[in-house]
């Protein structure tokens, strides 16, 4: 295929980067654009990875759960969507059942073998946390928190 303009051949599909001066400029431009795209993609990937890291999510979830318990009243059941945490635990080979643990008035969220983040709440209630499962006994990515009066 040839593209013609006023009788002159601009480029042919079979010989993209050959001979003419215009062709060599095109190679450099393509290289420049490709390098820029690679650079920007690496930056974006870095940003996304930082924003969805296990350590950051552990902190977010534990504080969120503690505040949620603080504002809850006895005989409440709260469901929290933790799909992001579930994805990370699948990567890190941790049972989703062990992600959230509550001992006394301290919430502990653990998304990898080595890390973990704990935060305390001031509401004197008894809290139980367990993951929701569907009919096939698979985790749905939702955690259920039941809040009762202490000693019940």
């Amino acid at each position, binding site marked *: 295929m040839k593209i013609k303009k006023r009788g002159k051949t601009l480029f042919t599909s079979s010989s993209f980067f050959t001979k003419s*001066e215009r062709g*060599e*400029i095109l*190679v*450099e*431009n393509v*290289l*420049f654009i490709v*390098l820029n795209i690679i*650079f920007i993609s690496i*930056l974006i990937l*870095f*940003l996304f990875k*930082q*924003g969805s*890291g296990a350590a*950051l999510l552990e*902190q*977010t979830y534990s*504080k969120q759960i*503690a*505040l949620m318990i*603080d*504002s809850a009243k*006895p005989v409440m059941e709260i469901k929290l969507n933790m799909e992001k945490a579930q994805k990370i635990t699948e990567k890190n080979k941790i049972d989703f059942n062990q992600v959230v643990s509550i*001992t*006394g*008035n*301290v919430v502990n969220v653990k998304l990898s073998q080595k890390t973990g983040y*704990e*935060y*305390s709440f*001031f*509401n*004197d*209630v008894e809290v139980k946390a367990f993951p929701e499962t569907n009919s096939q006994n698979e985790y749905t990515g939702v955690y259920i928190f039941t809040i009762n*009066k*202490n000693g019940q």
Partner: protein
Amino acid sequence: MIKNKKVKHILRKGIKEISHYVFFPKNRIGAEKIISVYWFVILIIIAGAVVAMVSLFYGSPYDVRVTEANIMINQVSNCLSQSGELNKNLFISENSEKKFNENFNLLEECNLIFETKFENAVGEYFLEAEFYDLNNERLFSISEGNSNLKTDCKIAEGEKKYKRLSKCVDREFYSLDSENQAYKINILSVVRKTEKNVK
């Protein structure tokens, strides 16, 4: 066409003057124009700036102390005044005279627990409820927790350099007792938890 050629020539000259260090040999214009040391220096500066900003942003923990203090005030105000009427346990009658109950236990009545099992955790909370009449005269006050934290509230509220101090939230509301006497209740809630909320 002649004009275009002239422009190209000038450009070429200009570029030769600008780019001294080039990665590729002088094979016409392209490489000289783009892949120069200057360009890579700019890329490194941008990448460094992005990494620094991201680590600064994600490196500091989320500060939830103000939210926590607000939730605590909600809980305390709900237990001190239910449906606009003050909690009956706040009052005792002595010799047929109604008085504020000095033994009112804020923690028990409002279902609060201030102890934490963290290392080096010394009194992370302070809570104070003051009762005023409508002439703004203080009648009674009750408090729980680490009273040393109260001094933090008086030091330059909101200034960034004092971010390691405790966070204080102060709110007031009006309520009636069983004899329809009105009171103004001022609740101060202070949360420290500096290690978990400030870098």
